[in-house]
């Protein structure tokens, strides 16, 4: 039962994907989606890491929008760099960033967001301890850069709260 409760969000997500795939939220599609989701999750149970977070839809949306916005700006910046590479734009380096208290899921979210956002690319990531190595293009101040990443970590943690943390709260 515990397992089912933990899996519930994922059942929802999968069912939603199923309904989207089929186009219309008919009863048949929803029921079908539920059935297939349960089947998939029953056959291949989720790793606990995924089920151990409570997710906050609004915070997630904010996070997503932030990333999407960064993506657009990042793309434009890189486009400019590609079309007109100057030494300043090409200044680059690999920066080590510690993410204190980040769970693997958070680390992944942050690392992925980094890779999507302007001129940054996660080269290495470890989750225990949570450390990222990020390649940055147009790198000017490493410490400022580190701060921007920790900001990203905060936004991600807002979207996905680890269950243990929630219990403490």
């Amino acid at each position, binding site marked *: 039962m515990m397992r089912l409760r933990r899996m519930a969000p994922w059942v929802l997500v999968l069912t939603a994907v199923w309904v989207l795939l089929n186009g219309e939220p008919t009863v048949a599609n929803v029921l079908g989606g539920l059935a297939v*989701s349960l089947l*998939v999750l029953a056959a291949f149970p*989720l790793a606990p890491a995924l089920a151990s977070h409570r997710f906050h839809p609004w915070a997630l949306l904010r996070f997503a929008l932030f990333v999407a916005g960064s993506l657009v700006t990042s793309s434009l910046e890189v486009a400019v760099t590609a079309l007109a590479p100057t030494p300043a734009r090409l200044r680059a380096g690999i920066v080590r960033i510690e993410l204190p208290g980040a769970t*693997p899921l958070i680390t992944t979210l942050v690392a992925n967001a980094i890779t999507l956002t302007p001129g940054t690319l996660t080269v290495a990531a470890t989750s225990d301890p949570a450390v990222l190595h990020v390649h940055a293009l147009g790198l000017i101040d490493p410490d400022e850069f580190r701060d921007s990443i920790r900001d990203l970590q905060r936004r991600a943690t807002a979207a996905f709260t680890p269950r243990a943390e929630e219990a403490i709260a």
Partner: protein
Amino acid sequence: MFLLVASHLLIAAALFAVGAHLPRRGMIGLALVAPVAALGWFAVQVSSVLDGAELSSRLSWVGGLDVSFSFRLDGFALLMALVVTGIGALVLVYSDGYFGPDVPRERLARFAGGFVAFAGAMLGLVLADDVWTLFIFWEATTVTSFILIGLDDEKAAARAAARQALLITGLGGLGLLGGLAILSNAAGTTALSDLAAADDARVVVQVGLALALLGAITKSAQVPFQFWLPGAMAAPTPVSAYLHSATMVKAGVILVGRLAPQFAEVSWWRPAIVLIGGATMVVGGVNALRQHDAKLLLAHGTVSQLGLLIVLFGIGHPETTAAGVALLVAHALFKAGLFLIVGIVDHATGTRDIRRLHGVRSQLPWVAAMAAIVTASMVGLPPLLGFVAKEAALDALVEEAGAWTVVALVAVVLGSVLTTAYSVRLWFGVFGDGRQPAEDPATVRHRPGASLVTPVAVLAGLTVAGGLFAGPLGDRLGVASEALDEAAHGHLTLWAGLHLPLFLSIGIIAAGTGLYLALERSSGVPTARLSGEGAFLRTYDGVQDGARRLTALVQNGSLPAYVAVIFCVVVAAIGGAAVHGAELGPADPTGGGVLQGVVAAMAAAMAVAMVATRRRFVAVLMLGVVGYAMAVIYILQGAPDLALTQLLVETITLVVFLLVLRHLPEGYSAPPEWAPKALRVGIAVAVGLAVTGFALAAGTARTERPVAEEIIERTEPEGGGQNVVNVILVDFRGIDTLGEITVLAIAAAGVANLVRAARRDLDDDAIDPLGDPESVGDGPDPLAANPAPVMGAHSAIFDQVTRAAFPVILLVSVYVALRGHNAPGGGFAGGLIAGIAFVMRFLAGGSPRLRRARPVPTSGFIGCGLLLAVGTGLASVLGGAEFLDGGIGHLEVPIIGEVELVTATVFDIGVYVLVLGAVLSVLTHLGAEAARPPRWVRRRVEVGAT
């Protein structure tokens, strides 16, 4: 008559099977049953046959080819049957005494079995009234003769002699087969006596006749094949006496006797017969004079006599034929007798070397006397049968006009002189004491028993009786010769008065004796420089050598060369067809649009670049690009299913490629090239051009597509789907798909099996004392022993994304699989997508994770999928419908509404499960990291370390 022949074969089989368990006497006794019974039966038939009755019987075997067991007991057949069974019985009796207790039972059983089998075959041969019956028994005698010559197979000489006899007579047999096929085809009948219906003016018929003659002269050991017969003396004496003097070697004579009356008028027949037979007489005679082994002397003598018989039977005049019949009987009696006598002497003294034999006459007086009788018959002294027969022969030759008859007469005279000489030499050699005593004389050590002597006595007696009662015998033999040639009445007489033949006989005997005396005084006949045997061996070795050279040439064992040959054949085939006039239809230079052209150009460029690159991994990437380009072209061609599948397969293939290539060095090594590059490029370009041309020709040949229209029409109403391609795959041509997934299933099994084999090597290593001692403790599964990811270090990001994406991908795979009936996709694409989900997990965590991810072993997946797919088909059969004849069911479900159920969907689910299992299997097995590198790597490391 079948019964008689068959009883021989049955008894032979019995002797082969259980003979070795019988007492020695029992074996011989059992063996005797058949010939004795047959002899009795034939003896009973004598009077009726003499009265002109002809018994015949026919048992069809292969009606479609007119092959039957067709026997006819005419005079000649009866005569030969009596000879075969009579002498057979006598020799069997003799062999009871001949084979001592030191001969292994097993060999004795083989002898008895082979002997009786031969007797049966020979009986069949002489009774044959049909070309195929004749041929069947002809070949049977070849085989049994082979077995009997090689009776003492532990000796190299016996094996070589058997091989020689087999191949020479085998050659003749095949000639005979061809000849008989041609003759019977031309004559429109397979009856041996009606072959004359063939139009012998036709070259083909003459060739057929020549081929048949080839069969005859090989079997009867005529020049240039005479050498096998002396070689065959490696067989024990009873065999020599029976097969290689009295019966089998007469088969050629019999055949010639049957053919000559029908074809003697063919222009080359008589010259050929006379030249071959005459040469054989002389060669055999001269060779006989050279021998010191009495048995070999006899063998060469037999060759010579066979030449005489061939001439007499072959020349095709009634009188000579009649004389031939008489001589045939005479020869059978005296030659068998002589062989048996030599055997007795051999048995008694331990040698057959006439230089060593000493004092035999005094110790074995009766044997010497009988030997004198049969030798005299061979020489042609009155009042013996040999004399009578030879007189008849000379008489016939003298009487008949014709140039070749004269030549024949000369040859016969010459041969007879030699015969006299070697006969005298034989008798005096064996029984005389010579002028100077041998260095190690051999004398009689033990006396021959009754079973040895009696048969000889019977033969000698018959020889005498035949001479004394020449008249009545001649009348009866006349019936036999009439069976060959109606005009050949023949008459024998002991005293025909003072006429030319008699003088010839006297002259021959005088000259022969003189020759013997002259040779005794000189150092004998010099040994031959040209030996047929040597020629045979050289030919045999030459054939072997040539075969090796040729085989090394056409079968060089090199894969690239093989591939090149195949493609050359393809080019030649298409080129040949083009020469034959294939037309290019109206091609469409811009068909498919510009986009397609551009993509095609890119794909082509990438393919060429792939060929050019010398780095494997780059080439693999390029192959992937070509595959993607194919997918784009499929999209442009209106084939979404294909594009989807192509993309998925390309992705998985890339992964599998990388799994294997990760072990291999980046660049290609440079193994020796098998051909210059220009040639290889030339072949490749030729293939490309040929295929392009053919594609243009075939692709424009048709404008309609009736099948496609019908399929499209019937897809929705009858197939219950909208995706025509998918309905074809799971319904119209569902059994194709069943086959296809079976291929996939078994390929996955094959991959697993190869890996399993490699693991076994590793297990071997585990107990290898030189191996790493720590590894001995490893579990049986090297997979489980390796916790590290397979490729690359662990990545938290990848790991997390994989965890999240995995269920989504699986969901999508189910969607694609289920929607396939109406949209691009289907079980196969779905299964591949699911497989890719696992590929991802595999790449993220390596196979240990994959192992945890799947609940059942891969072969279970594959088995279940296959079971589901084939079960769908079988279910419809159980329901009485056609295989895979599914239905479309409509089910009303509350809330959900109407659900369409197509049995094909169940089939597609089976496909899904199987494909997933196959991908998993390939992945887990090829992805498995061995706990340690294979043996060759470690060896290299060890060598490097020391």
